[in-house]
């Protein structure tokens, strides 16, 4: 039995600290954020509940939502056509509203591999994939994705044959990209759940392929 199991007199708070608190932001940043947030609430621009809901909403976005869209496109040719040509209508079926942005879905094929970047900031298909990964916002990726995409892909462990063309799409404020990865061979007859498990966030940004069938078995 542990030594302090019966020791209830050692004076510290028994509610304990079950949660490792985030590191605090710089004081000046916290002051500015708190001030802006409170002023926006006082002015009736946003409510505390709006902020809570916005955080909740961003947490529901991500890989699994994107995977549902990809798998629908893999299994429903009419939907795929709509996704590639007028993505707004296709996304509405998933309750996703990109407005005022436009989403361009780019399809990976035997001959073409697509990859997405935002060289100027970190524009990303947020209504589908949520907050972009940290590397997507960093200078390394932003600078080099457009200059030496194959080298960058290698850093993600993605090796492409020389005859597969790489197309890099530079996002902006109004136009966002999503990669439609290639459906792997050998997945005929799979259920949607099985297929969705193959699709990763990175495969929809185009820095990697979908999970390999071996990875799923493991």
């Amino acid at each position, binding site marked *: 039995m542990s030594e302090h199991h019966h020791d209830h007199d050692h004076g510290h708070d028994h509610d304990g600290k079950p949660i490792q608190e985030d590191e605090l*932001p710089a004081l000046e940043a916290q002051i500015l954020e*708190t001030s802006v947030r409170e*002023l*926006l609430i006082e002015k009736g621009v946003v409510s505390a509940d709006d902020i809570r809901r916005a955080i909740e909403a961003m947490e529901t976005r991500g890989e699994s939502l994107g995977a549902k869209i990809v798998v629908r496109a893999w299994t429903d040719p009419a939907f795929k056509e709509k996704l590639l040509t007028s993505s707004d209508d296709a996304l509405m079926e998933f309750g996703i509203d990109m407005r005022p942005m436009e989403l361009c879905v780019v399809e990976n094929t035997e001959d073409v591999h697509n990859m997405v970047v935002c060289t100027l900031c*970190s524009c990303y298909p947020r209504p589908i994939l949520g907050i972009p990964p940290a590397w997507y916002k*960093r200078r390394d990726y*932003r600078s080099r994705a457009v200059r030496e995409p194959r080298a960058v892909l290698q*850093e*993600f462990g993605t090796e492409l044959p020389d005859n597969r063309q790489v197309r890099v799409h530079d996002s902006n404020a*109004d136009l966002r990209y999503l990669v439609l990865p290639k459906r792997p061979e050998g997945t005929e007859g799979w259920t949607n759940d099985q297929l969705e498990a193959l699709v990763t966030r990175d495969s929809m940004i185009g820095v990697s392929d979908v999970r390999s069938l071996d990875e799923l078995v493991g």
Partner: protein
Amino acid sequence: MRGPQDYGGLPAGAVDPVKHEHVPTHWEKTVDALMMLIFDQRRQLARVDESRRMQEMLGEDYHKYPYYERWLQAVAWLMLEKGVFTQEELEAKQTEVRGRLEAERSGN
């Protein structure tokens, strides 16, 4: 002329997809939420390119700011520019908040 944000094609370091992942903190999510709310269809107080313009106005400081501090500065400047609150209101609020947060941080 290249602005401070204009990284495309410049030499840079290797991407480390393991090390360069980061789960946003609650504070970062709050700043993210404020930006998304001022952009949303209901409010339409600003657009993404306006936020970028504000961040680019940081000039060389652009590189010194952590990502979400840049966003926060952009939200603050946008709200001032749009007249949602005034510089005086912001400064008064900051003085009050500073007192509160400093007390909180020193454990009072």
